[in-house]
């Protein structure tokens, strides 16, 4: 990946973050922390990694994405709007009566959403089903699913991991957004999922541990995942919850809260300054 491509991705990620704040602020509720932590991964997937066409969101040969940590859909919606699946004006109607953008992803109502999700642990199973269908039909598409680290406390995640390895789903890439925080506090205090890499390896995955905010590392990990044959791959992305908005970073309270007017203005100012800085580079 060359420098100009990386610079563009950084700018796009900044715009994705602006969309997240816009959506959650206008909704008056939602989940900014985990949306912001995964913003760089969303950006990379939809602007670099995945074979998709916003004009043909149901193309049977497209790559698929399942947001298993469905509550962080403000991030998904923001990147989908930026990629041209629907008008960005929809973000301001997030969570409102009659809105296209529901509080958790609804595949029936939102172009670009490949699976309804939100109940933790379920998305990864659906992703396994999509990967399985691809294998059965000799298709070359790939399936990506994004999980939270707290989500890995759900038993179904591990049922799905066993299934993916048993069926050698090398067209499946599981990404875990390890932002370290869940509703009740730090993941290691609440549930305790470590050592996640060893667990996933033991379950039959090829595992890559990266800094989830470094596009160099993201780029390298997805390339290695694509090259992995005979087994599924997992990218453990260490991230900062609330990344990009100073007062939200590493604060458990921003898991599921909307900014007030003042906080909104601060967040937008910070992100706009960051974007201006990147554009001036």
């Amino acid at each position, binding site marked *: 990946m060359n420098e100009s491509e990386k610079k563009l991705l950084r700018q796009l990620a900044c715009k994705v973050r602006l969309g997240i704040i816009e959506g959650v602020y206008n909704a008056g509720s939602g989940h900014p922390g985990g949306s912001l932590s995964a913003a760089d991964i969303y950006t990379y997937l939809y602007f670099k990694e995945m074979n998709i066409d916003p004009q043909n969101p149901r193309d*049977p040969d497209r790559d*698929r994405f*399942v947001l298993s940590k469905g509550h962080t859909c403000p991030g998904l919606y923001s990147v989908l709007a930026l990629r041209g699946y629907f008008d960005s004006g929809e973000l301001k109607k997030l969570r409102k009566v009659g809105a296209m953008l529901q509080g958790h992803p*609804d*595949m*029936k109502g939102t172009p670009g959403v*490949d*699976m*309804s999700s*939100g*109940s933790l*642990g*379920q*998305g*990864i*199973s*659906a*992703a*396994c*089903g*999509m*990967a*399985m*269908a*691809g294998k*059965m*039909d000799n298709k070359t598409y790939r399936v990506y699913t994004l999980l939270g680290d707290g989500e890995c406390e759900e*038993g*179904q995640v591990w*049922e*799905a991991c*066993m*299934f993916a390895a*048993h*069926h050698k789903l090398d067209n499946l890439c599981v990404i875990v957004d390890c932002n370290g925080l869940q509703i009740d506090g730090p993941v290691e205090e609440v549930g305790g999922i470590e050592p996640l890499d060893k667990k996933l390896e033991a379950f039959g995955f090829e595992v890559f541990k990266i800094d989830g905010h470094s596009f160099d590392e993201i780029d390298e990990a997805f390339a290695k995942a694509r090259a992995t044959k005979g087994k599924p791959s997992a990218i453990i992305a260490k991230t900062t919850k609330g990344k990009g908005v100073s007062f939200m970073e590493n604060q458990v309270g921003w898991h599921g809260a909307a900014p007030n007017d003042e906080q909104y203005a601060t967040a937008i100012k910070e992100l706009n300054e960051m974007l201006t800085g990147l554009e001036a580079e």
Partner: protein
Amino acid sequence: MAEMIKKATRESFGMAVTMAARENPDIVVLDADLAAATKTSIFKKEFPDRFIDCGIAESNMVGVSAGLATCGKIPFCATFAMFAAGRAFEQVRNSVAYPHLNVKIVGSHAGISVGEDGATHQCCEDIGLMRTVPNMVIINPADHYEMIEAVKAAAEVKEPVYLRLGRLAVESFNDPDNGYKFELGKGITLHKGDDITVIATGLCVSEALKAVNNLEKEGINARLINIHTIKPLDRDIIIKAAKETGRIITVEEHNVMGGLGDAVCSVLAEEYPTAVRKLGVEDRFGYSGPAKELLEIFGLCQSNIEKVIKEELSK
């Protein structure tokens, strides 16, 4: 006249889904380590490449089925009713029904006729659970021929379906060579009569049929309606029966709460208030024992249905 076949509906299902799969290449079957019991083993033998054993992980199996359905497959996802509707309830609701995916949830070994395995495996709550899930179609076939038709219909309709199967062998009474026609969402009048109406489903239909036939000899003309589709329910056939015969008895191998009886009551309460006697499992757990003996103890047999009809007529 079609041959009388004495088979458990689970076995008929295994045959039926295999037959349907010959016509429709999109059909795939999933099981959770119970292929020998749910009889998906019949399918597995003929279509090993379209059979997915998910191991003992029902929640994941339902989710995998949902993913397959988004890619155009028609998954029949089978396990015991207890696990399909019970353990994986939320996966059925959120991963299948909410996104309105074309997945067929197959709940085998439903009701107390599981027999010796006892209460942990005798699911008498599945119809109630599935009835409350929006978008869900519920089919509970009564004999071999009905199961064959039900599977065809389930494969054709682009809706999530819950299909209930039994473990115990039942003698067939529907005759495809003699007027039997399966229509999703339509009840079938198996016996005409204006004295009283019996509405039965699944395994209990054959017992109810024997009961009303026997009572005919004593001059009692009971109407018998087979409700194979519990949702969407054939409201018209129920309201018509209430208007023409008055009193209604429902018979099902399910908790009297939440099942066919409650579904009938809710239609009649709104449309034509009528006294309904619900025969079923009286809000209690079952226990181990031979299936036939248990069905007698729980009153889901010909003799008790006859007794209850007489009691109701004497009121």
